[in-house]
């Protein structure tokens, strides 16, 4: 190749280089400011926003409304990175709505986030050691306390939570919100109940013409429950994720009755029920009941005069005190009884003999360190409510007045005039013996017993 040609090619490529070099590489700016400026701007914007509300902010934090309810939090942001906080989170039976101070920060990462950097109430939702269900072992309540700033809309601050990416809205709080928070407590207590509350929960819907019953399986810690239809063949079921208000409950997930979505359950102190009302007579009611949602015919095996063979069931303190079907009220009565015994004595068994060879039915109370006591009864049925009613026939010879007084509370439950619901359970405890539960129709007394 000639030198001239080489030059020519060189010049052409050089010319191309020249043309290219002066091309403006500046892209049309999508933003007026650079990324750092924008982030610092957002940080200031969020902080100003947080500080701007005189009575702070309120957030009902649903950490995962497919399995958990919501917890109401109030925040009052103060200068120098401090924040006052209150929540209606419940530990055990204690709902502490007091106000506590801690620190917060705006942290910069891929975007600006609000972080509650020192311990306060919101961290209770993020405690690996305190989970409301077995499925959430080591995950607490799935709570976050780092929230990514997403923007402001209609006066609400919108965040996304750090781990789960859920939206969380801060709405402006009022002075009323702060005084009202403590009023959530009686609502929480009413729904959770105590040992005297009836054992079963029902949801009853009214579509304007007929009522429908649902068994309501509610987890008080999770604030989440599922209502299963009790109508044969019906698969209807509703999940309910609760947050509390001074007047009742709000469910994030609605109950649909006749096309109406019901979410606001208002507490009715007269009946202790929570009622969500729609229009045209439509409503949904949450209530407690002593009657099991599904009553069985198992009691019939125990009736006398029906040709039933002898059957014996026994509560054995050593094995059945902690059974999940033993009610708190039963345990409470047993503890009271034991407290009235001398040192070293305690109730060891309550054995119930039905239709013995001598055609007797009696309750046999056994003790550690004390002679057994027998209470002879007769049995009859309430065929409508499906209960067996045990009626006093007399205490066995040798029973003292002190024994009768000692056993009165428990004995009154077993012989209450409305009778006992009896259910053969499907589970076993320690031994292979079938388990029966005997529940009072007039209180929250439920005893767990082996078939012996």
């Amino acid at each position, binding site marked *: 190749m000639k030198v001239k040609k080489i030059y020519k090619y060189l010049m052409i490529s050089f010319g191309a280089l020249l043309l290219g070099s002066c091309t403006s590489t500046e892209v049309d700016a999508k933003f007026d400011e650079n990324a750092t400026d924008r982030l610092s701007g957002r940080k200031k914007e969020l902080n100003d926003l947080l500080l701007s509300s005189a009575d702070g902010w309120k957030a009902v934090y649903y950490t995962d409304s497919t399995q958990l309810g919501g917890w109401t939090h109030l925040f009052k942001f103060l200068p120098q*990175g401090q924040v006052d906080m209150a929540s209606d989170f419940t530990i055990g039976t204690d709902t502490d709505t007091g106000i506590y101070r801690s*620190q917060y920060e705006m942290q910069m990462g891929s975007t600006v986030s609000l972080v509650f950097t*020192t311990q306060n109430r919101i961290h209770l939702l*993020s405690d*690996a050691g305190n989970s409301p269900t077995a499925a959430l072992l*080591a995950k607490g309540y799935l709570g976050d306390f780092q929230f990514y700033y997403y923007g402001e809309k209609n006066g609400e601050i919108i965040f996304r939570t750090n781990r789960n990416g859920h939206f969380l809205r801060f709405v402006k709080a009022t002075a009323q919100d702060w005084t009202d928070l403590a009023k959530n407590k009686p609502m929480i207590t009413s729904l959770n109940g105590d040992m005297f509350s009836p054992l079963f929960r029902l949801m009853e819907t009214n579509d304007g013409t007929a009522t429908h019953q649902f068994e309501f399986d509610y987890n008080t810690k999770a604030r989440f429950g599922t209502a299963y239809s009790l109508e044969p063949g019906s698969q209807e079921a509703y999940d309910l994720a609760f947050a509390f208000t001074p007047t009742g409950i709000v469910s994030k997930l609605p109950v649909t009755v006749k096309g109406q979505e019901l979410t606001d359950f208002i507490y009715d102190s007269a009946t202790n029920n929570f009622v969500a009302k729609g229009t045209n007579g439509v409503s949904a009611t949450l209530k407690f009941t002593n009657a099991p949602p599904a009553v069985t015919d198992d009691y019939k095996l125990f009736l006398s005069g029906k040709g039933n063979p002898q059957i014996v069931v026994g509560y054995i303190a050593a094995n059945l005190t902690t059974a999940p079907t033993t009610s708190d009220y039963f345990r409470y009565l047993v503890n009271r009884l034991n407290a009235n015994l001398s040192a070293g004595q305690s109730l060891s068994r309550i054995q119930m003999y039905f239709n013995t060879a001598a055609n007797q039915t009696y309750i046999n109370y056994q003790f550690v360190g004390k002679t057994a006591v027998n209470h002879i009864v007769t049995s009859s049925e309430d065929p409508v409510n499906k209960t067996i009613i045990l009626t006093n026939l007399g205490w066995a010879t040798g029973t003292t007045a002190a024994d009768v007084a000692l056993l009165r509370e428990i004995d009154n439950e077993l012989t209450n005039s409305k009778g006992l619901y009896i259910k053969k359970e499907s589970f076993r405890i320690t031994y292979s013996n079938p388990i029966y539960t005997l529940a009072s129709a007039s209180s929250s007394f439920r005893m767990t017993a082996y078939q012996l």
Partner: protein
Amino acid sequence: MKIAKIYKAALMSGILLLASCAHEEQPKESWLDFSVPNKTELDKWIGVNFLDPYNINVYYIWNQNLVDNNRYLYPPKGDKVQPAMEVVKKIWIDSYSTIGGADFVKKIAPREFVLVGGINLNTNGTVTLGLAEAGQKVTLFQVDNLNKKNRANVTQFIHTIQHEYVHILNQTKPFDEQAWAKLTPTGYTTSWYTAAIATSRNLGFITSYARLSIYEDFAETAATILTSSKAEYDAILASVTDATAKANIKAKEALVVKYYRDAFNIDFYALRDEAQKNTDFVINN
């Protein structure tokens, strides 16, 4: 003019043109926020007691980059931080400083302590008490639960630090891994947590966790001795019924003692006594 010359002139002017098109913005001051955050009394205390003398920082303010974001953890209670770090200072730093020399901890130490209030529960039901990462960072969990007046509680807490610090020492100077691995080679298991402690001891391990690997075994052996009085340690040995197992635990103890002497010129038993003295001091004051 020859064509070559024309080209040459064009080339020169072109280069000038190229240079003229380049204009760079000179860097100005930083965009980043370097303002010093407000220091609380606690921050100042940490500065005086850890940061200044030992170049160790203590993080009690939450920063998700310092912990496993998949875990449900939270910052410690504010009033628990100083008591916890006082325990760390007295039982760990002061004991090593007295026996190993005033500069010992200054030279070999984690540079960061991360404090977490709650329990670090694993989904298999086990609990992680502490973590040491790359010899730089030690994370302590359950700071909220520390009760300075309760010896068992303080011992468990300090066991975590002693354990993690042994790892850091090992990362600086390795122990005799070959000799160690020969002692109880078949006892190591990843499902260590299913074993009762008495079972593990009768296999020649001081704790069940020691059965995870020889490194955990070494750290557990050293930490258990450091957090037990001589009488308590003797009681542990006395509880081991299997003669081979007892001999193996003693052989491991000897390797630990040898390691401290050869690698750091530290009398391990003197260190143990000093740590016990300081533990008594913490509980009684």
